[in-house]
């Protein structure tokens, strides 16, 4: 066995995993606050990447301006979605809410095709290009810097949700909506914030993924891996999102490197099936207790 290759792939895998963790974090924030499974998160990533393409590639603004703007755009998209589509679905069955987000993802895919054309696009380079060596290990700089940026935002989010007023409100809402509401927390506002911040995390990840992997209206389908991540870690667990993201990213890259690309989906979905049968609520998820 070629250990150098193994470690190089592992680092690449963990770096991909860091980006997965970021998306999964966005997903979990939305789920924790609003109990909505957001199947459209991949499309929010895709649209944000297109926004970045527009700002940095077509309008030729500096990436340091374009990136925050793209994130803001993604966040606003999430917030508008919540207001227009998710809010009226309050109290409907989970099937309906899931289908609404699936419908939304279809709308976004079509809209992207109409606005930016159906073909694949390449984002302008904005990450340093010099390859990085750790000892003898070669790491592609794009992936390494993407991972660093993703981890940076992850840390910001974790600190923010731990210590800020908004974070406390979010956690309060997640643990008991009625109690939070009676303590003066505006639950509708929390819902909106959750969608905003969740989509913003996804937006950054979308730009990072597109920077190394290219972009097309169908890029959003990578969110299938994210679903595996969140189920694996537990839908309502931030730790789960982090651990799950790293693990699934690593596993996917290792499968791609050692077995071939077509086995990626098979491996992670097989893993998913086993997790669901053995630990239905994921590694760190809270078990739901049902009452009549």
């Amino acid at each position, binding site marked *: 066995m070629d250990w150098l290759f193994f470690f190089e792939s592992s680092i690449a895998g963990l770096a991909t995993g860091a980006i997965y963790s970021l998306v999964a974090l966005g997903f979990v924030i939305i789920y924790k606050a609003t109990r909505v499974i957001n199947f459209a998160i991949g499309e929010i990533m895709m649209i944000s990447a297109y926004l970045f393409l527009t700002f940095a590639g077509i309008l030729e603004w500096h990436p340091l301006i374009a990136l925050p703007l793209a994130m803001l755009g993604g966040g606003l998209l999430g917030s508008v979605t919540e207001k227009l589509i998710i809010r009226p679905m309050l109290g409907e069955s*989970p099937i309906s809410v*899931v*289908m609404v987000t699936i419908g939304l993802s*279809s709308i976004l895919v079509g809209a992207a095709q109409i606005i930016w054309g159906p073909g694949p696009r390449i984002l302008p380079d904005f990450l340093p290009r010099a390859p990085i060596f750790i000892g003898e290990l070669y790491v592609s700089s794009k992936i390494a810097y993407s991972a660093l940026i993703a981890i940076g935002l992850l840390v910001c989010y974790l600190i923010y949700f731990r210590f800020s007023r908004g974070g406390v409100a979010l956690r309060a809402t997640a643990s008991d909506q009625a109690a939070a509401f009676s303590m003066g927390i505006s639950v509708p506002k929390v819902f909106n914030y959750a969608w905003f911040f969740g989509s913003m995390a996804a937006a950054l990840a979308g730009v990072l993924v597109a920077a190394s992997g290219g972009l097309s209206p169908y890029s959003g389908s990578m969110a299938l891996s994210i679903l595996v991540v969140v189920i694996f870690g537990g839908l309502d667990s931030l730790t789960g999102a982090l651990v799950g993201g790293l693990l699934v990213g690593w596993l996917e890259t290792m499968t791609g490197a050692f077995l071939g690309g077509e086995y990626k989906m098979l491996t992670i979905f097989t893993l*998913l*099936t086993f997790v669901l049968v053995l630990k239905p609520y994921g590694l760190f998820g809270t078990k739901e207790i049902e009452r009549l």
Partner: protein
Amino acid sequence: MRIGDAVSTYPSDEAIFRTQTQKVWMGIFIATLLTFPFVSSPYTLFLACLVGIAVISATGLNILVGLTGQISLGHGGFMGVGAYTAVWLADNMGMGLALSMPLAGLLTAAVGVVVGLPSLRVKGLYLAIATMAASVILHFIFVHWEPVTGGNAGINLQNANIFGINLNSDLRMYFVVVPLAIIAVLGERNLLRTRIGRAFIAVRDRDISAEVLGVDLLRYKLMSFGLSSFYAGCAGALWAYFFKVVTPESFPLDTSIFYLAAIIVGGMGTVLGPILGAIFMTLVPEILKILTAVVVPILPNAQVLLSPVRVVVFGALIVGFLLYEPHGMAEMWRRTRRYSHLWPFKT
């Protein structure tokens, strides 16, 4: 509510058609279906066959999602299993449709039961994702089990027969598909009147209460998965007989979403819903095509926009129906009927 149809016996209360008028209309409907292929253009006939297959499949999904309340994103994968099995049986065993379709359905039902196993431990969204995992795994099998599935190139159906009659025209397919669709719908309607159907509904409404009342969850959930995938398998087999070729891309994840959308737009949990939904969703692209033809003089590049617009409309229909008409087209139909019954009085 109809006035003046008080029933005095249990059979008449359970009857499928409760009034004479309904029977007459049903007769007219069947007669229309019988004469339709002789007056329609070849293209509408082609569409009619597609609609018939979609009705069978949507009805099957409705049993699982609408009646039993288990979300499934694996329906497309099940149709694929049915399609591959039917083609394999027809080509390698020389079977006709009359034998290969039920066998394909049975095999798919078995696969469905296995896929349904997680439903005993997980519910709702977790189950949706578990079934999605199943469809990903099935897709992998379609691509890689080359001796049987022919890999990416797929397999062709050489021997499309039913009782020795070659199914080589849309007209012949029509007379296979439509009666089967009617049988499928009748089957579902009758299921609703049995203990099994009522148990399904009990599981959907509150599974714990159902269990307390003596409904065996294990049995009925798996039965629902089995029945639903049986329908899907048969629909997949018909699909294969209709197009004469099956590839792994014939039944992508989008197929599952398409059928979920169809039963939502039509109205989940009703008999009429999946029928209306399947008809509507299959015809929407055609309506858009006609609209494009109208718009072309004003907007020359409308043709290019057709495919993305179709995607947008598909999504917008799902969102729009869920937001503004959550009970779907079946509810619209019911409202219209009630209005016409009581006219000129207000409902």
